[in-house]
């Protein structure tokens, strides 16, 4: 894996985590007692029922669970798109619960890269321009061309979304997400709309970003096979974390079959 992340003094990790984790790392996210209740009409939906979670710098986490397990809600809260009903989330020294809408926007702008199931590219912009959209507003960004090269689409740079396959569009979305050199890359079912072969190329792109740039990466999926490529697999069910596993060796994406 070749990651050499020095331990930071004062890291507020629990002793248990230090013991169970092979590497001692800085926790990027800290969440405690997260609950999230949606009210739809008269019905209350308990999406999260008390989640405690730490994400460490540079690690690759897969959040695994069936639909309705609360994994998207968790990701949205971590990404500053949603707020928990109770509990707290901290990104480094940012309290995400206390943050207002504008502060959350700044948080996303400065620290988070998103990859969505349906790519969400701007149809009127070419691949390069979609990436440039982000690099324009970020001070320390890559050149859009370099970001696109990372995902292996140098030759498709000037194509519009409608001229790209689903896998290519998702790789552009990844390039867009990483171009600002985010601290954390959050991927919501990135292969959900793709076939196996294409899905693998997309996962390879994500994996290589994590490996080469050291970006903390969280991928949510309902596909258990994908779990093999992660450092850590957190399984959710009915709004709770039900299992946590560590992979001693990360499987390369091209070995995955589903």
């Amino acid at each position: 894996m070749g990651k050499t992340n020095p331990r930071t003094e004062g890291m507020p990790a629990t002793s248990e985590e230090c013991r169970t984790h092979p590497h001692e790392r800085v926790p990027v996210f800290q969440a405690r007692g997260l609950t999230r209740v949606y009210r739809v009409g008269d019905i209350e939906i308990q999406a999260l029922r008390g989640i405690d979670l730490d994400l460490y710098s540079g690690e690759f986490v897969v959040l695994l669970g069936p639909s309705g397990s609360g994994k998207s809600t968790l990701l949205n809260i971590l990404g500053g798109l949603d707020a928990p009903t109770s509990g707290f989330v901290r990104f480094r020294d940012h309290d995400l619960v206390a943050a207002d809408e504008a502060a959350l926007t700044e948080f996303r702008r400065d620290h988070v890269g998103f990859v969505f199931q349906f790519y969400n590219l701007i149809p009127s912009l070419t691949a390069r321009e979609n990436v440039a959209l982000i690099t324009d507003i970020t001070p320390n960004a890559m050149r859009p061309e370099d970001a696109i090269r990372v995902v292996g689409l140098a030759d498709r740079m000037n194509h519009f979304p409608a001229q790209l396959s689903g896998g290519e569009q998702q790789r552009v979305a990844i390039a867009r997400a990483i171009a600002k050199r985010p601290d954390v890359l959050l991927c919501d079912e990135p292969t959900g709309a793709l076939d196996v072969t294409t899905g693998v190329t997309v996962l390879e792109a994500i994996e290589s970003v994590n490996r080469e740039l050291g970006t903390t990466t969280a991928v949510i999926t309902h596909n258990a096979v994908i779990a093999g490529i992660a450092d850590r697999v957190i399984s959710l069910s009915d709004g709770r974390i039900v299992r946590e596993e560590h992979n001693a060796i990360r499987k390369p994406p091209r070995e995955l079959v589903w």
Partner: protein
Amino acid sequence: MTALHRKLLRDLWHLRGPATAISLVMACGVATFVMSLCTLETLWRAQSEYYDRYRFADVFVRVKRAPESLAARLAEIPGVAQVETRIVEQVNLDVSGYPEPATGRLVSIPDYRPPRLNQLHLRRGRRPEPEREGEVLVSEGFADAHRLQPGDKVRAILNGRRQDLMIVGIALSPEFIYQIREGDLIPDDKRYGVFWMPRTALEAVFDMDGAFNDAVLSLTPDAVPGEVLRRTDDLTEPYGGIGAFDRSEQASHKFVTNEMSELRGMALVVPTIFLLVSAFLLQVVVSRLIGTQREQIATLKAFGYRRSEVGVHYLEMIMVMAVLGVILGTVAGAWLGASVAAMYARFFRFPEFQFHLSPRVLLAAAGLSLTVAGLATLGAVRRAMALPPAEAMRPEPPAAYGTSWIDSQRVFRDASPVVRMIVRQIARRPFRSAMTCFGISLAVAVLILGSFMVDALDDVIDLEFTVAQRQDMMLTFFEPTVGRGVANVRHLTGVLSIEPFRALPVRLRAQNHSRRLALLGLPSDARLYRIVDRDRRAIPVPRHGVVISANLAKALELSAGDWLTVEVLEGKRPVVHLQIESLVADFQGESAYADLAVVNRLMQEGNVVSGVFLTADAAHLNALYRQLKETPQIASVSLKGAALTSIRQTIAANILRMRAFNVGFACVIAFGVVYNSARIALAERGRDLATLRVIGFRRGEVSGILLGELALFTLAAIPFGLLLGYGMADLVIHMAYDTELFRIPLVVNRWTYAFAATTTILAAACSGLIVARRVGQLDLIAVLKTRE
């Protein structure tokens, strides 16, 4: 209520913003249509009822002095139904407490019976009795202006003698619906009034025993008017007849008719603009709605709804918006119409003038609006009907963008992605973009259309009262006067300079065309009253021939250098041929000028004048007025400053009010177009915009993308709108204001352009900001979970 109707109501509720905008724009169109046509019909009905009930005459005859026996001969002319002879004189008035001189028109009425023609409507008081000296009826306008009541007195100079006119009643006549002094541009009730006096009383004062100087005739239905006029002229010529004329040349009738043709022009142009805009908005909104409801349409069809039921469903939705517009427009139109009618009631004196909401007009407005709404959305509704269910189940295909010519442009290559987004979005739907631009430019155009009139009139006023006329007042004498009368005026207190003129009633003939008008003789070095064309160039007084209006030359089919026949209708009635030395492109369009010396030579008279223009020392005005009121030879005094004030007041009262209406209307258009464009842009690109928000764009930046596009449209629309407004103003001038009476110049000044542009930008900005607030309400999570 069926489920489909519930859907209809809920969809409408969901679309309440755009639907309201559409209904409002449509309402503006309906309102102007209803206002103009109902006012037109109100005017028309009031006029024709008044004419019928009070027997308005068909032919008007002026003579110098004719024996009463001529009346019987006039009555014998085939086609003449009735004849009423009268004595009509212009006199100077002295109203107590009012320093400036005023002019009165004295009209005789038969002693013991109502007139056969031009009967009076007695508002208050009683008819004057011939036995009691000086009893008169006064016209309502003058009475109102001076708060005169029966029992009040007005002093007048009758044939050189001072006499008190005792007001016993206040009356109206179909002859003076619009009460304007000859030669004035706008009525001035303070300085001009009509008085009716028993015939014998007037005969005595003006030495007209058994004689008359004015006659009015009515015609039988089978009369040939031209023939009657010709025969009348033949009969009156020996008695100094200055040419009989029909209603088309009667001052009051001419102005009322003119107003009606203006209203008709307005009823065509302005509502058409609004209906066009609302049609466009409807088309865009309904197409968009049907696009987003593809799956719902497919589901309805899959469950067995017929094509026609789907079509009717959407048509009902469209009709709800249109009917709402019609109802709102009718209410607004009725209100505006009543307000315009009230304005007319101040200028046009009818016995009754009640705004009439014509069912015919309302039906036409409703029919027109619903038809336009239906036609505009026909294509979209048919697409909904034709949608195959299986295909419609799939969501609308995603927007396909490709490279276009614009990508190769140099400027574009360095543009930011946000700018590219905006430009490509515009370029992707060129038709809709163009229509949006066009819609906004119509708002600009409506503003210019509603405002240019003030500019145009300002221009006329400035030209007329500053460049051409430099006198302070104009005096006319009862009789053409020789030098001594002029000298008397020169020696009045406060008179600084004078300049004589001669106004000669003539008939100009060229082949089979002829025109009656006053030929104005001016001194060759005229300074106080100059011949000036539309470009403010002074044209020298012709040395031997005449200068006539370009418009008049056109009507006579003559050009500069041609000769025309001048029949003088006064004195020895000479007929001479004069050459047109040059044409003057002026506004009033019916002027003819000659050298005063030439006029006097052709009249075989010495140094004779009809009046003088004069400038006066402002410090001595009241003294001068007092002397003028006591000078018997002076028939009338026209004060330029007073005329100017009265014109400005009229403009303020009427045109500025219309302008306010138009500003309101234009704001509705600009607001409606921009609001709808923004709403649709938001709906179509909500997903893109939400994505940008998720990946870290600030709310302001995302709003900027949405508003940037609208700002571009607005900025592009403005220059075009300014041009369009100029063009429409030109069209309106041709359709409504290019009458023989008065030609309004096409003048739009810089402030009006700036006003139109600024108002449109403000209206657009307001609506844009309202929509931009919705950017904050975008559902960031939902948008990520749905496929486009």
